[in-house]
Protein backbone atom coordinates (compact mmCIF):
# COMPACT_ATOMS: atom_id res chain seq x y z
CA UNK A 1 0.00 0.00 0.00
CA UNK A 2 3.00 2.26 0.36
CA UNK A 3 2.85 3.43 -3.26
CA UNK A 4 2.65 6.91 -4.68
CA UNK A 5 -1.06 6.72 -5.70
CA UNK A 6 -3.06 9.82 -4.84
CA UNK A 7 -5.34 9.16 -1.91
CA UNK A 8 -6.72 12.69 -1.93
CA UNK A 9 -6.63 15.47 -4.51
CA UNK A 10 -8.24 18.86 -3.85
CA UNK A 11 -8.50 21.34 -6.73
CA UNK A 12 -9.33 24.94 -5.83
CA UNK A 13 -11.99 23.90 -3.33
CA UNK A 14 -14.16 26.62 -1.79
CA UNK A 15 -16.92 26.44 0.78
CA UNK A 16 -19.28 29.31 1.43
CA UNK A 17 -21.98 29.26 4.09
CA UNK A 18 -24.94 31.57 3.74
CA UNK A 19 -26.12 32.67 7.15
CA UNK A 20 -29.13 34.75 6.19
CA UNK A 21 -27.76 37.83 4.38
CA UNK A 22 -24.17 37.19 5.42
CA UNK A 23 -21.91 34.97 3.36
CA UNK A 24 -19.15 33.26 5.29
CA UNK A 25 -16.27 32.04 3.14
CA UNK A 26 -14.91 29.16 5.18
CA UNK A 27 -12.58 27.91 2.44
CA UNK A 28 -11.31 30.25 -0.28
CA UNK A 29 -9.65 27.98 -2.80
CA UNK A 30 -7.73 25.08 -1.30
CA UNK A 31 -5.62 22.73 -3.43
CA UNK A 32 -3.41 19.95 -2.17
CA UNK A 33 -2.62 16.31 -2.70
CA UNK A 34 -2.14 13.53 -0.21
CA UNK A 35 -0.50 10.37 -1.46
CA UNK A 36 -1.46 6.95 -0.29
CA UNK A 37 0.44 6.04 2.88
CA UNK A 38 1.02 9.64 4.02
CA UNK A 39 0.56 10.83 7.61
CA UNK A 40 -0.62 14.44 7.54
CA UNK A 41 -1.59 16.81 10.32
CA UNK A 42 -3.90 19.71 9.52
CA UNK A 43 -3.42 22.63 11.90
CA UNK A 44 -4.95 26.02 12.32
CA UNK A 45 -6.56 28.30 14.88
CA UNK A 46 -10.29 28.13 15.46
CA UNK A 47 -12.23 29.80 12.64
CA UNK A 48 -9.43 29.04 10.21
CA UNK A 49 -11.60 26.63 8.22
CA UNK A 50 -9.89 23.45 9.35
CA UNK A 51 -13.13 21.92 10.61
CA UNK A 52 -14.82 22.75 7.31
CA UNK A 53 -11.89 21.17 5.48
CA UNK A 54 -12.15 18.08 7.69
CA UNK A 55 -15.90 17.79 6.98
CA UNK A 56 -15.26 18.03 3.24
CA UNK A 57 -12.44 15.48 3.38
CA UNK A 58 -14.76 13.22 5.40
CA UNK A 59 -17.48 13.48 2.74
CA UNK A 60 -19.90 14.81 5.35
CA UNK A 61 -20.32 17.96 3.27
CA UNK A 62 -19.90 19.08 -0.36
CA UNK A 63 -17.66 21.90 -1.62
CA UNK A 64 -19.34 25.02 -3.04
CA UNK A 65 -16.91 24.90 -5.97
CA UNK A 66 -13.79 23.04 -6.96
CA UNK A 67 -13.13 19.32 -7.21
CA UNK A 68 -12.30 16.64 -4.65
CA UNK A 69 -10.98 13.25 -5.75
CA UNK A 70 -10.96 10.58 -3.06
CA UNK A 71 -9.11 7.42 -4.02
CA UNK A 72 -9.63 8.28 -7.68
CA UNK A 73 -13.38 9.13 -7.41
CA UNK A 74 -14.74 12.66 -7.88
CA UNK A 75 -16.90 12.99 -4.78
CA UNK A 76 -17.58 16.75 -5.02
CA UNK A 77 -20.96 16.34 -6.74
CA UNK A 78 -22.32 13.15 -5.19
CA UNK A 79 -25.73 12.93 -3.51
CA UNK A 80 -26.31 12.15 0.17
CA UNK A 81 -26.67 8.40 -0.21
CA UNK A 82 -23.68 8.16 -2.57
CA UNK A 83 -21.59 10.08 -0.03
CA UNK A 84 -22.79 7.66 2.66
CA UNK A 85 -21.57 4.79 0.50
CA UNK A 86 -18.18 6.51 0.05
CA UNK A 87 -17.89 7.05 3.81
CA UNK A 88 -18.77 3.42 4.37
CA UNK A 89 -16.19 2.03 1.95
CA UNK A 90 -13.31 4.50 1.83
CA UNK A 91 -13.18 6.45 5.08
CA UNK A 92 -12.59 5.73 8.73
CA UNK A 93 -13.38 8.33 11.40
CA UNK A 94 -11.76 8.84 14.78
CA UNK A 95 -13.37 11.52 16.94
CA UNK A 96 -12.23 13.51 19.94
CA UNK A 97 -15.13 12.18 22.03
CA UNK A 98 -14.73 8.56 20.84
CA UNK A 99 -18.43 8.34 19.91
CA UNK A 100 -18.88 4.74 20.94
CA UNK A 101 -22.33 3.28 21.51
CA UNK A 102 -22.81 2.89 25.26
CA UNK A 103 -24.26 -0.44 26.47
CA UNK A 104 -22.67 -2.07 23.42
CA UNK A 105 -19.59 -4.28 23.61
CA UNK A 106 -16.26 -3.22 22.08
CA UNK A 107 -16.68 -5.90 19.44
CA UNK A 108 -20.20 -4.76 18.44
CA UNK A 109 -18.99 -1.15 18.30
CA UNK A 110 -16.15 -2.07 15.98
CA UNK A 111 -18.46 -4.22 13.85
CA UNK A 112 -21.05 -1.43 13.38
CA UNK A 113 -19.85 -0.14 9.95
CA UNK A 114 -20.01 -3.70 8.62
CA UNK A 115 -23.67 -3.87 9.66
CA UNK A 116 -24.40 -1.10 7.17
CA UNK A 117 -22.17 -2.82 4.63
CA UNK A 118 -24.54 -5.79 4.84
CA UNK A 119 -22.14 -8.41 6.21
CA UNK A 120 -23.43 -11.36 8.20
CA UNK A 121 -23.07 -11.35 11.98
CA UNK A 122 -20.31 -13.95 11.84
CA UNK A 123 -18.23 -12.07 9.26
CA UNK A 124 -18.72 -8.83 11.20
CA UNK A 125 -17.52 -10.34 14.47
CA UNK A 126 -14.53 -12.02 12.83
CA UNK A 127 -13.36 -8.76 11.22
CA UNK A 128 -14.03 -6.80 14.42
CA UNK A 129 -11.99 -9.15 16.61
CA UNK A 130 -9.07 -8.99 14.15
CA UNK A 131 -9.05 -5.19 14.38
CA UNK A 132 -9.36 -5.19 18.17
CA UNK A 133 -6.33 -7.48 18.39
CA UNK A 134 -4.51 -5.13 16.01
CA UNK A 135 -5.03 -2.20 18.40
CA UNK A 136 -4.03 -4.30 21.40
CA UNK A 137 -7.50 -4.98 22.86
CA UNK A 138 -7.75 -8.69 22.09
CA UNK A 139 -8.65 -9.32 25.75
CA UNK A 140 -11.30 -6.57 26.03
CA UNK A 141 -13.70 -7.51 23.23
CA UNK A 142 -16.77 -8.03 25.40
CA UNK A 143 -16.21 -4.97 27.57
CA UNK A 144 -18.62 -2.07 27.29
CA UNK A 145 -17.21 1.46 26.80
CA UNK A 146 -17.95 2.32 30.45
CA UNK A 147 -15.71 -0.55 31.50
CA UNK A 148 -12.75 0.76 29.48
CA UNK A 149 -10.28 3.60 30.11
CA UNK A 150 -10.25 6.65 27.84
CA UNK A 151 -7.22 5.35 25.95
CA UNK A 152 -8.84 1.96 25.50
CA UNK A 153 -12.06 3.59 24.26
CA UNK A 154 -10.11 5.54 21.67
CA UNK A 155 -8.40 2.30 20.60
CA UNK A 156 -11.85 0.76 20.08
CA UNK A 157 -12.80 3.80 17.99
CA UNK A 158 -9.61 3.39 15.95
CA UNK A 159 -10.38 -0.30 15.41
CA UNK A 160 -13.85 0.74 14.21
CA UNK A 161 -12.28 3.23 11.79
CA UNK A 162 -10.12 0.44 10.36
CA UNK A 163 -12.70 -2.32 10.15
CA UNK A 164 -13.85 -1.51 6.61
CA UNK A 165 -10.25 -1.26 5.40
CA UNK A 166 -10.57 2.43 4.40
CA UNK A 167 -8.40 4.35 1.92
CA UNK A 168 -8.05 7.18 4.46
CA UNK A 169 -8.33 7.40 8.24
CA UNK A 170 -9.54 10.82 9.42
CA UNK A 171 -8.82 11.71 13.03
CA UNK A 172 -10.36 14.85 14.54
CA UNK A 173 -8.43 15.88 17.69
CA UNK A 174 -8.01 12.20 18.61
CA UNK A 175 -6.12 12.98 21.83
CA UNK A 176 -8.22 15.97 22.89
CA UNK A 177 -9.90 14.05 25.70
CA UNK A 178 -6.82 12.10 26.86
CA UNK A 179 -4.00 12.75 29.32
CA UNK A 180 -0.49 13.18 27.94
CA UNK A 181 0.70 9.66 28.64
CA UNK A 182 -2.35 8.08 27.01
CA UNK A 183 -1.99 10.56 24.13
CA UNK A 184 1.51 9.25 23.55
CA UNK A 185 0.17 5.70 23.41
CA UNK A 186 -2.49 6.67 20.87
CA UNK A 187 0.06 8.58 18.78
CA UNK A 188 2.25 5.48 18.94
CA UNK A 189 -0.68 3.45 17.58
CA UNK A 190 -1.21 5.91 14.70
CA UNK A 191 2.51 5.76 13.96
CA UNK A 192 2.35 1.99 13.93
CA UNK A 193 -0.68 2.01 11.60
CA UNK A 194 1.08 4.45 9.26
CA UNK A 195 4.14 2.19 9.25
CA UNK A 196 1.78 -0.52 8.12
CA UNK A 197 0.76 1.63 5.13
CA UNK A 198 -2.36 3.43 6.38
CA UNK A 199 -3.08 6.93 5.08
CA UNK A 200 -3.81 9.11 8.11
CA UNK A 201 -5.09 12.67 8.22
CA UNK A 202 -5.30 14.25 11.64
CA UNK A 203 -6.79 17.60 12.62
CA UNK A 204 -5.27 19.10 15.76
CA UNK A 205 -4.28 22.39 17.33
CA UNK A 206 -1.59 20.73 19.47
CA UNK A 207 1.94 21.18 18.07
CA UNK A 208 3.27 18.21 20.08
CA UNK A 209 0.62 15.94 18.63
CA UNK A 210 1.11 17.33 15.12
CA UNK A 211 4.86 16.70 15.34
CA UNK A 212 4.13 12.96 15.20
CA UNK A 213 2.86 13.34 11.64
CA UNK A 214 5.21 13.36 8.67
CA UNK A 215 3.72 16.50 7.12
CA UNK A 216 1.88 19.50 8.54
CA UNK A 217 -0.61 21.53 6.53
CA UNK A 218 -1.42 24.87 8.16
CA UNK A 219 -4.74 26.60 7.44
CA UNK A 220 -5.62 30.23 8.14
CA UNK A 221 -8.58 32.32 6.92
CA UNK A 222 -9.72 29.58 4.60
CA UNK A 223 -6.41 29.20 2.80
CA UNK A 224 -3.37 26.94 3.14
CA UNK A 225 -0.57 29.10 4.47
CA UNK A 226 2.10 26.47 5.02
CA UNK A 227 2.72 22.86 3.93
CA UNK A 228 5.95 21.31 5.25
CA UNK A 229 7.34 17.88 6.06
CA UNK A 230 8.16 17.41 9.77
CA UNK A 231 11.26 15.95 11.32
CA UNK A 232 9.45 12.59 11.07
CA UNK A 233 8.99 12.95 7.32
Amino acid sequence: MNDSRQAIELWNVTKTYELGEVKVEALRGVSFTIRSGEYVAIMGPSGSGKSTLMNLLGCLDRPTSGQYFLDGTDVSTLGDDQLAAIRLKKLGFVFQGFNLLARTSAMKNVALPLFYAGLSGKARNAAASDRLREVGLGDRMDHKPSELSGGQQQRVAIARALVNDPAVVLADEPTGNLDSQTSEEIMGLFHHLNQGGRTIIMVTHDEDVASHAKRIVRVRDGRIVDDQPTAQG
Partner: protein
Amino acid sequence: MRISQYFAEAFAVLAANRIRTILTALGLIIGVTAVISIQVLGAGMAGAVSGILGAASDRTFVVLPNQQQADFTRAAIRLSDLQRAKDEIPNVIDAMPAGGQNLQAAYGHSHRRLTLGAGADERFATATPLRYGRKLSADDIVAGRHVCVLSDRAYTKLAISGDPTGGSLRVGDRRFTIIGVLGVDQTGILPISFNQDVTIPYTTYEREFARGRAILFARFLLQDPSRVEQTEADTLAWLKHIKGARVEYQTFDRKTFTKAVDGIFAGITLIVALIGAVSLLVAGIGILNIMLVSVAERTREIGLRKAIGATRFQILLQFFIEALSLSAFGCIVGMLFGILIGALVNDLAIVKLSGVVAPIPWLRSILIATGFATVVTLVFGTYPAWRAATLDPIEALRYE
Protein backbone atom coordinates in the same frame (compact mmCIF):
# COMPACT_ATOMS: atom_id res chain seq x y z
CA MET B 1 -28.68 -5.02 6.05
CA ARG B 2 -30.87 -7.90 7.03
CA ILE B 3 -34.20 -6.92 8.53
CA SER B 4 -33.72 -9.33 11.45
CA GLN B 5 -30.60 -7.35 12.45
CA TYR B 6 -32.71 -4.22 12.69
CA PHE B 7 -35.18 -6.03 14.94
CA ALA B 8 -32.29 -7.31 17.07
CA GLU B 9 -31.01 -3.71 17.39
CA ALA B 10 -34.50 -2.44 18.22
CA PHE B 11 -35.04 -5.12 20.90
CA ALA B 12 -31.65 -4.28 22.41
CA VAL B 13 -32.60 -0.58 22.64
CA LEU B 14 -36.07 -1.34 24.05
CA ALA B 15 -34.66 -3.85 26.55
CA ALA B 16 -32.03 -1.33 27.67
CA ASN B 17 -34.81 1.18 28.47
CA ARG B 18 -37.06 -1.42 30.11
CA ILE B 19 -39.18 0.83 32.34
CA ARG B 20 -39.71 3.40 29.64
CA THR B 21 -40.64 0.72 27.11
CA ILE B 22 -43.20 -0.87 29.42
CA LEU B 23 -44.75 2.45 30.43
CA THR B 24 -45.02 3.54 26.81
CA ALA B 25 -46.48 0.22 25.74
CA LEU B 26 -48.92 0.34 28.67
CA GLY B 27 -51.19 2.75 26.80
CA LEU B 28 -51.46 0.33 23.92
CA ILE B 29 -51.75 -2.68 26.23
CA ILE B 30 -54.72 -1.13 28.05
CA GLY B 31 -56.42 -0.02 24.84
CA VAL B 32 -56.00 -3.33 23.05
CA THR B 33 -56.93 -5.30 26.18
CA ALA B 34 -60.16 -3.30 26.52
CA VAL B 35 -61.13 -3.66 22.88
CA ILE B 36 -60.32 -7.36 22.61
CA SER B 37 -61.84 -8.40 25.94
CA ILE B 38 -65.06 -6.67 24.90
CA GLN B 39 -64.84 -8.44 21.55
CA VAL B 40 -64.46 -11.80 23.28
CA LEU B 41 -67.31 -10.98 25.66
CA GLY B 42 -69.41 -9.75 22.75
CA ALA B 43 -68.84 -12.98 20.89
CA GLY B 44 -69.80 -14.89 24.04
CA MET B 45 -72.97 -12.82 24.49
CA ALA B 46 -73.97 -13.01 20.85
CA GLY B 47 -73.42 -16.75 20.97
CA ALA B 48 -75.48 -17.02 24.13
CA VAL B 49 -78.32 -14.93 22.74
CA SER B 50 -78.51 -16.73 19.43
CA GLY B 51 -78.28 -19.99 21.31
CA ILE B 52 -81.24 -18.96 23.43
CA LEU B 53 -83.21 -17.57 20.52
CA GLY B 54 -82.46 -20.78 18.70
CA ALA B 55 -84.58 -22.46 21.33
CA ALA B 56 -87.66 -20.58 20.12
CA SER B 57 -89.45 -22.17 17.21
CA ASP B 58 -89.02 -20.45 13.86
CA ARG B 59 -92.24 -22.06 12.58
CA THR B 60 -94.53 -19.69 14.43
CA PHE B 61 -95.18 -15.97 14.61
CA VAL B 62 -97.39 -13.90 16.81
CA VAL B 63 -99.90 -11.20 15.84
CA LEU B 64 -101.35 -8.70 18.28
CA PRO B 65 -103.49 -5.62 17.84
CA ASN B 66 -101.78 -2.30 18.57
CA GLN B 67 -102.85 -0.85 21.93
CA GLN B 68 -103.16 2.69 20.59
CA GLN B 69 -105.71 2.62 17.81
CA ALA B 70 -109.02 4.24 17.04
CA ASP B 71 -111.17 1.13 17.28
CA PHE B 72 -109.46 -1.45 19.48
CA THR B 73 -112.65 -3.51 19.80
CA ARG B 74 -112.94 -3.82 16.03
CA ALA B 75 -109.33 -4.95 15.84
CA ALA B 76 -109.70 -7.62 18.53
CA ILE B 77 -108.98 -11.12 17.25
CA ARG B 78 -111.70 -13.69 17.84
CA LEU B 79 -111.65 -17.46 17.88
CA SER B 80 -113.72 -17.57 14.70
CA ASP B 81 -111.05 -15.47 12.92
CA LEU B 82 -108.41 -18.03 13.78
CA GLN B 83 -110.52 -20.90 12.47
CA ARG B 84 -110.84 -19.08 9.13
CA ALA B 85 -107.17 -18.11 8.98
CA LYS B 86 -105.79 -21.60 8.36
CA ASP B 87 -108.02 -22.00 5.28
CA GLU B 88 -107.60 -18.51 3.85
CA ILE B 89 -103.94 -17.50 4.42
CA PRO B 90 -101.32 -19.31 2.33
CA ASN B 91 -98.63 -21.19 4.31
CA VAL B 92 -100.64 -21.00 7.57
CA ILE B 93 -101.40 -24.49 8.86
CA ASP B 94 -103.22 -23.34 11.93
CA ALA B 95 -103.72 -20.44 14.28
CA MET B 96 -104.20 -20.51 18.01
CA PRO B 97 -104.73 -18.12 20.90
CA ALA B 98 -101.44 -17.29 22.52
CA GLY B 99 -100.54 -15.89 25.89
CA GLY B 100 -101.86 -17.26 29.10
CA GLN B 101 -104.27 -16.77 31.93
CA ASN B 102 -103.34 -16.73 35.56
CA LEU B 103 -105.29 -19.52 37.20
CA GLN B 104 -105.29 -21.43 40.47
CA ALA B 105 -103.77 -24.87 39.95
CA ALA B 106 -103.43 -27.79 42.35
CA TYR B 107 -101.32 -30.93 42.40
CA GLY B 108 -102.02 -33.15 45.35
CA HIS B 109 -102.16 -30.78 48.34
CA SER B 110 -100.19 -27.89 46.86
CA HIS B 111 -102.07 -24.96 45.37
CA ARG B 112 -100.46 -22.24 43.25
CA ARG B 113 -101.41 -19.52 40.82
CA LEU B 114 -99.84 -20.46 37.52
CA THR B 115 -99.97 -19.15 33.95
CA LEU B 116 -101.85 -21.52 31.73
CA GLY B 117 -101.52 -21.23 27.99
CA ALA B 118 -102.22 -22.88 24.69
CA GLY B 119 -99.63 -24.97 22.91
CA ALA B 120 -99.31 -26.83 19.66
CA ASP B 121 -97.50 -30.05 18.89
CA GLU B 122 -93.76 -30.54 19.09
CA ARG B 123 -92.98 -29.04 15.67
CA PHE B 124 -94.04 -25.62 16.97
CA ALA B 125 -92.76 -25.93 20.53
CA THR B 126 -89.63 -24.39 22.01
CA ALA B 127 -86.43 -26.42 22.04
CA THR B 128 -86.43 -26.59 25.85
CA PRO B 129 -85.40 -30.15 26.80
CA LEU B 130 -87.76 -32.50 28.60
CA ARG B 131 -87.13 -33.75 32.12
CA TYR B 132 -89.93 -36.28 32.21
CA GLY B 133 -92.47 -37.70 29.75
CA ARG B 134 -93.23 -36.13 26.39
CA LYS B 135 -94.39 -32.91 24.76
CA LEU B 136 -97.83 -32.37 23.20
CA SER B 137 -98.48 -34.56 20.18
CA ALA B 138 -100.54 -33.91 17.04
CA ASP B 139 -103.08 -36.43 18.38
CA ASP B 140 -103.47 -34.48 21.63
CA ILE B 141 -104.26 -31.38 19.55
CA VAL B 142 -106.69 -33.05 17.14
CA ALA B 143 -108.52 -34.85 19.92
CA GLY B 144 -108.44 -31.81 22.24
CA ARG B 145 -107.32 -33.98 25.15
CA HIS B 146 -107.15 -32.85 28.76
CA VAL B 147 -103.40 -33.25 29.03
CA CYS B 148 -100.72 -30.75 30.07
CA VAL B 149 -96.98 -30.19 30.06
CA LEU B 150 -95.49 -28.47 33.12
CA SER B 151 -92.60 -26.03 32.99
CA ASP B 152 -89.66 -26.34 35.34
CA ARG B 153 -91.04 -23.32 37.23
CA ALA B 154 -94.44 -24.98 37.72
CA TYR B 155 -92.73 -28.20 38.82
CA THR B 156 -90.80 -26.29 41.45
CA LYS B 157 -93.73 -24.08 42.58
CA LEU B 158 -95.99 -27.06 43.08
CA ALA B 159 -93.23 -28.72 45.12
CA ILE B 160 -93.44 -31.89 43.07
CA SER B 161 -90.78 -34.52 43.63
CA GLY B 162 -90.03 -37.37 41.27
CA ASP B 163 -91.81 -38.14 38.04
CA PRO B 164 -95.38 -36.74 38.06
CA THR B 165 -96.41 -38.00 34.61
CA GLY B 166 -99.72 -39.80 34.66
CA GLY B 167 -100.69 -37.72 37.70
CA SER B 168 -103.47 -35.20 37.66
CA LEU B 169 -103.36 -31.40 37.76
CA ARG B 170 -106.48 -29.56 38.77
CA VAL B 171 -107.19 -26.15 37.22
CA GLY B 172 -110.42 -24.71 38.54
CA ASP B 173 -112.91 -27.55 38.20
CA ARG B 174 -111.09 -29.19 35.30
CA ARG B 175 -108.55 -31.99 35.51
CA PHE B 176 -105.55 -32.45 33.24
CA THR B 177 -103.28 -35.47 33.02
CA ILE B 178 -99.61 -34.49 33.28
CA ILE B 179 -97.81 -35.98 30.27
CA GLY B 180 -94.46 -34.21 30.55
CA VAL B 181 -92.22 -31.84 32.53
CA LEU B 182 -89.79 -29.48 30.85
CA GLY B 183 -86.21 -29.04 32.01
CA VAL B 184 -84.53 -25.77 32.98
CA ASP B 185 -85.25 -22.95 30.57
CA GLN B 186 -81.95 -21.64 29.21
CA THR B 187 -82.93 -18.02 29.19
CA GLY B 188 -79.38 -16.91 29.96
CA ILE B 189 -78.87 -13.18 29.88
CA LEU B 190 -82.27 -12.49 28.34
CA PRO B 191 -85.08 -12.50 30.90
CA ILE B 192 -87.44 -14.05 28.39
CA SER B 193 -89.02 -17.44 28.74
CA PHE B 194 -90.81 -18.84 25.76
CA ASN B 195 -92.69 -21.29 27.98
CA GLN B 196 -95.74 -20.77 30.14
CA ASP B 197 -96.14 -22.69 33.42
CA VAL B 198 -98.78 -25.10 32.14
CA THR B 199 -99.21 -25.81 28.46
CA ILE B 200 -102.35 -27.56 27.23
CA PRO B 201 -103.41 -28.36 23.63
CA TYR B 202 -104.69 -25.17 22.00
CA THR B 203 -107.84 -26.98 20.90
CA THR B 204 -108.56 -27.74 24.55
CA TYR B 205 -107.63 -24.19 25.55
CA GLU B 206 -110.04 -22.71 23.01
CA ARG B 207 -112.87 -24.92 24.17
CA GLU B 208 -112.32 -24.57 27.92
CA PHE B 209 -110.83 -21.11 28.48
CA ALA B 210 -110.99 -18.85 25.39
CA ARG B 211 -114.61 -19.20 24.34
CA GLY B 212 -116.44 -15.91 24.42
CA ARG B 213 -113.34 -13.81 25.21
CA ALA B 214 -111.36 -11.52 22.96
CA ILE B 215 -107.99 -13.06 22.25
CA LEU B 216 -105.03 -10.96 23.46
CA PHE B 217 -102.79 -12.21 20.70
CA ALA B 218 -102.66 -15.08 18.27
CA ARG B 219 -99.95 -17.50 17.28
CA PHE B 220 -99.83 -18.66 13.65
CA LEU B 221 -98.24 -21.98 12.75
CA LEU B 222 -96.39 -22.20 9.46
CA GLN B 223 -95.87 -24.89 6.90
CA ASP B 224 -92.69 -23.39 5.48
CA PRO B 225 -90.53 -21.44 7.97
CA SER B 226 -88.49 -19.78 5.20
CA ARG B 227 -91.53 -17.73 4.15
CA VAL B 228 -92.21 -16.10 7.53
CA GLU B 229 -92.06 -12.53 6.29
CA GLN B 230 -94.34 -13.11 3.30
CA THR B 231 -96.82 -14.96 5.47
CA GLU B 232 -96.79 -12.17 8.07
CA ALA B 233 -97.56 -9.65 5.33
CA ASP B 234 -100.32 -11.89 3.96
CA THR B 235 -101.79 -12.26 7.44
CA LEU B 236 -101.85 -8.51 8.07
CA ALA B 237 -103.46 -7.95 4.67
CA TRP B 238 -106.01 -10.66 5.42
CA LEU B 239 -106.84 -9.12 8.83
CA LYS B 240 -107.38 -5.70 7.22
CA HIS B 241 -109.56 -7.41 4.64
CA ILE B 242 -111.86 -9.00 7.22
CA LYS B 243 -111.78 -6.18 9.83
CA GLY B 244 -111.49 -3.00 7.80
CA ALA B 245 -108.56 -0.93 6.58
CA ARG B 246 -108.14 1.12 9.79
CA VAL B 247 -107.08 -1.74 12.10
CA GLU B 248 -103.41 -1.93 13.14
CA TYR B 249 -101.45 -5.02 14.17
CA GLN B 250 -97.90 -5.92 15.03
CA THR B 251 -96.16 -9.19 14.28
CA PHE B 252 -93.35 -10.83 16.22
CA ASP B 253 -91.21 -13.75 15.17
CA ARG B 254 -87.80 -15.05 16.06
CA LYS B 255 -86.26 -12.73 13.50
CA THR B 256 -87.81 -9.70 15.21
CA PHE B 257 -86.01 -10.65 18.42
CA THR B 258 -82.82 -11.45 16.56
CA LYS B 259 -82.99 -8.08 14.83
CA ALA B 260 -83.43 -6.25 18.12
CA VAL B 261 -80.51 -8.14 19.63
CA ASP B 262 -78.37 -7.52 16.54
CA GLY B 263 -79.18 -3.82 16.87
CA ILE B 264 -77.95 -3.82 20.47
CA PHE B 265 -74.73 -5.57 19.47
CA ALA B 266 -74.18 -3.18 16.57
CA GLY B 267 -74.44 -0.35 19.11
CA ILE B 268 -71.95 -2.03 21.44
CA THR B 269 -69.58 -2.64 18.53
CA LEU B 270 -69.74 1.03 17.57
CA ILE B 271 -68.96 2.15 21.13
CA VAL B 272 -66.08 -0.32 21.32
CA ALA B 273 -64.74 0.99 18.03
CA LEU B 274 -64.88 4.54 19.43
CA ILE B 275 -63.10 3.49 22.63
CA GLY B 276 -60.57 1.75 20.42
CA ALA B 277 -60.02 4.86 18.33
CA VAL B 278 -59.52 7.04 21.41
CA SER B 279 -57.12 4.60 23.08
CA LEU B 280 -55.29 4.25 19.78
CA LEU B 281 -54.85 8.00 19.61
CA VAL B 282 -53.66 8.28 23.22
CA ALA B 283 -51.29 5.32 22.95
CA GLY B 284 -50.03 6.57 19.59
CA ILE B 285 -49.22 10.00 20.99
CA GLY B 286 -47.33 8.28 23.81
CA ILE B 287 -45.26 6.36 21.31
CA LEU B 288 -44.73 9.46 19.16
CA ASN B 289 -43.50 11.33 22.22
CA ILE B 290 -41.12 8.62 23.41
CA MET B 291 -39.72 8.07 19.91
CA LEU B 292 -39.03 11.80 19.57
CA VAL B 293 -37.26 11.70 22.94
CA SER B 294 -35.32 8.67 21.78
CA VAL B 295 -34.23 10.41 18.57
CA ALA B 296 -33.20 13.56 20.47
CA GLU B 297 -31.25 11.55 23.06
CA ARG B 298 -29.41 9.64 20.40
CA THR B 299 -28.62 12.56 18.10
CA ARG B 300 -24.87 11.99 18.44
CA GLU B 301 -25.34 8.28 17.87
CA ILE B 302 -27.30 9.04 14.70
CA GLY B 303 -24.52 11.42 13.60
CA LEU B 304 -21.96 8.70 14.19
CA ARG B 305 -23.97 6.09 12.32
CA LYS B 306 -24.28 8.46 9.38
CA ALA B 307 -20.55 9.30 9.50
CA ILE B 308 -19.58 5.65 9.31
CA GLY B 309 -21.79 5.17 6.26
CA ALA B 310 -25.44 4.58 7.22
CA THR B 311 -27.81 5.91 4.57
CA ARG B 312 -30.92 7.94 5.37
CA PHE B 313 -33.06 4.92 4.56
CA GLN B 314 -31.10 2.72 6.95
CA ILE B 315 -31.56 5.23 9.78
CA LEU B 316 -35.25 5.61 8.91
CA LEU B 317 -35.67 1.85 8.96
CA GLN B 318 -33.91 1.53 12.31
CA PHE B 319 -36.20 3.97 14.10
CA PHE B 320 -39.26 2.80 12.24
CA ILE B 321 -38.62 -0.78 13.33
CA GLU B 322 -38.03 0.42 16.87
CA ALA B 323 -41.50 2.04 16.86
CA LEU B 324 -42.95 -1.06 15.24
CA SER B 325 -41.39 -3.35 17.85
CA LEU B 326 -42.71 -1.15 20.64
CA SER B 327 -46.26 -1.14 19.29
CA ALA B 328 -46.13 -4.83 18.37
CA PHE B 329 -45.08 -5.60 21.95
CA GLY B 330 -47.95 -3.54 23.33
CA CYS B 331 -50.49 -5.05 20.97
CA ILE B 332 -49.45 -8.68 21.49
CA VAL B 333 -49.49 -8.32 25.28
CA GLY B 334 -52.80 -6.45 25.04
CA MET B 335 -54.26 -9.16 22.85
CA LEU B 336 -53.27 -11.93 25.26
CA PHE B 337 -54.61 -10.00 28.27
CA GLY B 338 -57.77 -9.16 26.34
CA ILE B 339 -58.46 -12.77 25.42
CA LEU B 340 -57.63 -13.93 28.93
CA ILE B 341 -59.89 -11.39 30.65
CA GLY B 342 -62.64 -11.78 28.05
CA ALA B 343 -62.62 -15.57 28.28
CA LEU B 344 -62.51 -15.48 32.07
CA VAL B 345 -65.49 -13.12 32.40
CA ASN B 346 -67.29 -15.06 29.68
CA ASP B 347 -66.79 -18.33 31.58
CA LEU B 348 -67.72 -16.89 34.96
CA ALA B 349 -70.82 -15.00 33.85
CA ILE B 350 -72.23 -15.72 30.42
CA VAL B 351 -71.53 -19.42 30.05
CA LYS B 352 -72.84 -20.05 33.56
CA LEU B 353 -76.09 -18.22 32.81
CA SER B 354 -76.71 -19.42 29.30
CA GLY B 355 -74.91 -22.74 29.06
CA VAL B 356 -73.75 -21.67 25.61
CA VAL B 357 -69.98 -21.75 25.04
CA ALA B 358 -68.99 -19.45 22.18
CA PRO B 359 -65.56 -19.96 20.57
CA ILE B 360 -62.95 -17.27 21.24
CA PRO B 361 -62.69 -15.02 18.16
CA TRP B 362 -58.92 -15.55 17.70
CA LEU B 363 -58.77 -14.35 14.13
CA ARG B 364 -60.65 -11.13 14.87
CA SER B 365 -58.47 -10.50 17.95
CA ILE B 366 -55.27 -11.02 15.98
CA LEU B 367 -56.55 -8.75 13.21
CA ILE B 368 -57.44 -6.04 15.72
CA ALA B 369 -54.03 -6.25 17.42
CA THR B 370 -52.17 -6.22 14.10
CA GLY B 371 -54.33 -3.37 12.87
CA PHE B 372 -53.60 -1.32 15.99
CA ALA B 373 -49.86 -1.95 15.73
CA THR B 374 -49.78 -1.08 12.04
CA VAL B 375 -51.81 2.10 12.34
CA VAL B 376 -49.91 3.34 15.41
CA THR B 377 -46.55 2.64 13.78
CA LEU B 378 -47.46 4.19 10.44
CA VAL B 379 -49.13 7.26 11.91
CA PHE B 380 -46.92 7.91 14.93
CA GLY B 381 -43.65 6.10 14.19
CA THR B 382 -42.89 7.56 10.80
CA TYR B 383 -42.33 11.16 11.82
CA PRO B 384 -39.64 10.49 14.50
CA ALA B 385 -37.90 8.07 12.12
CA TRP B 386 -37.97 10.68 9.37
CA ARG B 387 -36.57 13.28 11.80
CA ALA B 388 -33.70 10.92 12.62
CA ALA B 389 -33.04 10.10 8.98
CA THR B 390 -32.82 13.70 7.87
CA LEU B 391 -30.49 14.91 10.63
CA ASP B 392 -27.37 16.58 9.32
CA PRO B 393 -24.44 14.38 10.35
CA ILE B 394 -22.13 17.33 11.09
CA GLU B 395 -24.68 19.02 13.36
CA ALA B 396 -25.63 15.71 14.93
CA LEU B 397 -22.01 14.86 15.80
CA ARG B 398 -21.61 18.29 17.41
CA TYR B 399 -24.82 17.87 19.47
CA GLU B 400 -24.28 17.87 23.23
